[in-house]
């Protein structure tokens, strides 16, 4: 459903993405792993048209989307859960979710539907329901991450982009969030592109994976293949280091 062909992205003089290609099939969970500064966020922001791509092509459901406005991308069904959660802290939890469905609010039917979607999200993350009147800035990190995911889901995306949802969270919360992502993919057939540093957990859940290194896509394969790959093990699955080196 999504095809990225040889895109190049620059920030002024910084060459951030070098001939990057990637594809996603409908219903897949694909993970993108890479070290700090590899260009993962840049790739997601290129997809969301937050940063312009210099050359190359991005096709979504067969249509080119590389020069649209960010709001049009959301309308087409691509939502991003940004790095560092970026909830609207001065607004209430409820209002954050409401804004997630911003584009649906122009019609009465859309408003009614947004209400339903919100109650679905409260079922997914019951804690958000308990906190719905609170300002988002008063939530804990994990709750903010849930809110950020909930906000993206309010737009009813076909493709969900997640940028390091596990960052800075306790293992228990990470498990809960990953469980929700997995359920979304199974029950709602939402396609997921998951950027993670927590490579082991991400690869366990994903069908396929990509490895990005300093702006270049260096590896691609099924999750099982990548988990077995020596380079991946050494660079991204740190815990096995000893085992590999001793052999």
């Amino acid at each position: 459903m999504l095809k990225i062909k040889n895109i190049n992205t620059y920030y002024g003089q910084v060459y951030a993405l070098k001939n990057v290609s990637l594809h996603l099939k409908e219903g897949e969970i694909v993970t993108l792993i890479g070290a700090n500064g590899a260009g993962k966020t840049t790739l997601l922001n290129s997809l969301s048209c937050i940063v312009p791509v210099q050359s190359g092509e991005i096709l979504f459901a067969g249509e080119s989307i590389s020069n649209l406005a960010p709001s049009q991308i959301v309308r087409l069904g691509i939502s991003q859960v940004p790095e560092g959660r970026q909830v609207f802290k001065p607004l209430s939890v409820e209002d954050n979710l409401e804004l997630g469905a911003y584009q649906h609010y122009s019609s009465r039917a859309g408003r009614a539907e947004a209400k339903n979607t919100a109650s679905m999200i409260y079922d997914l993350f019951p804690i958000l329901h308990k906190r719905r009147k609170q300002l988002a800035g008063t939530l804990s990190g994990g709750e903010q991450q849930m809110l950020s995911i909930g906000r993206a889901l309010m737009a009813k995306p076909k493709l969900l982009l997640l940028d390091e949802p596990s960052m800075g969270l306790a293992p228990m919360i990470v498990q809960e969030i990953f469980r929700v992502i997995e359920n979304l993919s199974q029950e709602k057939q939402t396609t997921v592109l998951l950027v993670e540093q927590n490579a082991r957990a991400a690869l366990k859940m994903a069908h396929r994976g990509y490895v990005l290194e300093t702006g270049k896509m260096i590896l691609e394969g099924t999750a099982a293949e990548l988990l077995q790959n020596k380079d991946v093990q050494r660079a991204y699955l740190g815990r096995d280091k000893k085992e590999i080196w001793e052999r």
Partner: protein
Amino acid sequence: MDNSRQLFQYILSGLSNGAIYALIGFGFAIIYNATGIINFAQGEFVMLGGMFTIFFLAFFHLPLLPAIILAILFSTIIGIAFERLAIRPLKNATPLSLVIITIGASILLRGIAMLVWGKDTHAVTAFSGNDPLYIAGATILPQHIWIFAITLLIIAANKIFFNYSIVGKAMRACAYNSQAASLVGINVKTMVLLSFVISSAIGSMAGIIIAPLTMTSFDVGIMLGLKGFCAVIIGGMSSGLGTIMGGLLLGLLESLGVGYISASYKDAIAFIILLLILFIRPEGLFRTKETERV
């Protein structure tokens, strides 16, 4: 006149001027929060409100209400043109250069107003006469009541818009984090334009309701703009209670200063407060702490 009655008169005129300063301050805050720009042309929209009203009254002999509505409409259209022609085309300009552009725009607007309408000072007729009302032994002009009522109405409308409507909430989201706002599908450019629409409309309304009391001319925007800026600085650049308090405080100090010290210090008071605030508490006197947690 005995002392307490006199004091009451000073307080009354102080509060009504203060309400106007608060409204002008709102205009600054709304644009600042949406764009990070301090729009120094804000005062000119106050001038345009009053001047357009006189223009429609005197030139087209329209009744007061249609003249006012048209004046607000035309000022707002100029606000839209300003954003489209001077702000939007500059994509990667720094806030500083945009602020300088607003100063340029204010000089331009003032110059055009002078060419079109001349240098004379004009009086708008009071909305419902000049016969003072006697309340509890004090006199109050009907125009004061208009000023308080309209100011309250604008504040209430503002509050409802930003707290309960989806577009108002989207504007706040945009002000807080425009990238996250565009990721949920909010068109940031539209929100910026809207902030110019709202603040030019509010600014022109302020100019219209004060015009019967203070007269108006092509250059009233400079001082009124400065005082609105002072109000919003006291209020910590918020479009809320802080700025209302800031405006009222400034109005009161001014009018008491004029009454008990000397009329020649009137405009100096705003400058002094402005400098004091900037030196001592640049975040404003009434800034409520943002609830934040990382």
